[in-house]
């Protein structure tokens, strides 16, 4: 089945230790998104890629970076995680063909910062 896959599902890191979260998709979608979701809150968009074009939300901290080496993969790098970065990180994709497009979400990676 075509889908959005996130690895790992659970990630534990130490304060200040860089961490990378992975997302892959078999939908061949042009657009990939990263969201941060803290406990009992709605998802918050961090950034997205339209093909190779990177679009950063204005309030996304510089501590968060992203890479998209090809259509299928997208990575979220947190350079120096703080305690406040503990959250669920959700990857999503959409076709990007214009009109009304649905975003398809992966299962998420829950990040714990010790």
């Amino acid at each position, binding site marked *: 089945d075509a889908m959005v896959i996130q690895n790992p599902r659970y990630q534990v890191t130490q304060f200040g230790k860089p961490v990378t979260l992975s997302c892959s998709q078999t939908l061949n979608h042009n657009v990939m998104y990263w969201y941060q979701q803290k406990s009992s809150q709605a998802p918050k*968009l961090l950034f997205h890629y339209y093909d190779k074009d990177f679009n950063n939300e204005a309030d996304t901290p510089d501590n968060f970076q992203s890479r998209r080496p090809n259509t299928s993969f997208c990575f979220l790098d947190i350079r120096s995680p703080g305690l406040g970065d503990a959250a669920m990180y959700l990857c999503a994709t959409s076709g990007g063909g214009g009109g009304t*497009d*649905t975003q398809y*979400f992966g299962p*998420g990676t829950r990040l714990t910062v010790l």
Partner: protein
Amino acid sequence: AQSVTQLDSHVSVSEGTPVLLRCNYSSSYSPSLFWYVQHPNKGLQLLLKYTSAATLVKGINGFEAEFKKSETSFHLTKPSAHMSDAAEYFCVVSLNLFGNEKLTFGTGTRLTIIP
């Protein structure tokens, strides 16, 4: 500008009784509207979407929603609740910018099903 207001942060219903989750929206454009469900420690699953076609939208798992422009509402309903419906529900409005969908989420409604 666009926004979504979910009128109830928590809803509790007994198993077998109807479910109503309320959502009001604001949008400068003709909106696309979605309902997503999130089970604990899981990603978001699309329940249904409205895209300016039929105003009554049927989704998965027996859910449906009605788009009412005059009331700027998009309430989610289900005739008979099941234990597996217990989850967080998000009403979402979409703005399409140059082919990129930017979603604005409501704050969510936690649905509890009483056995």
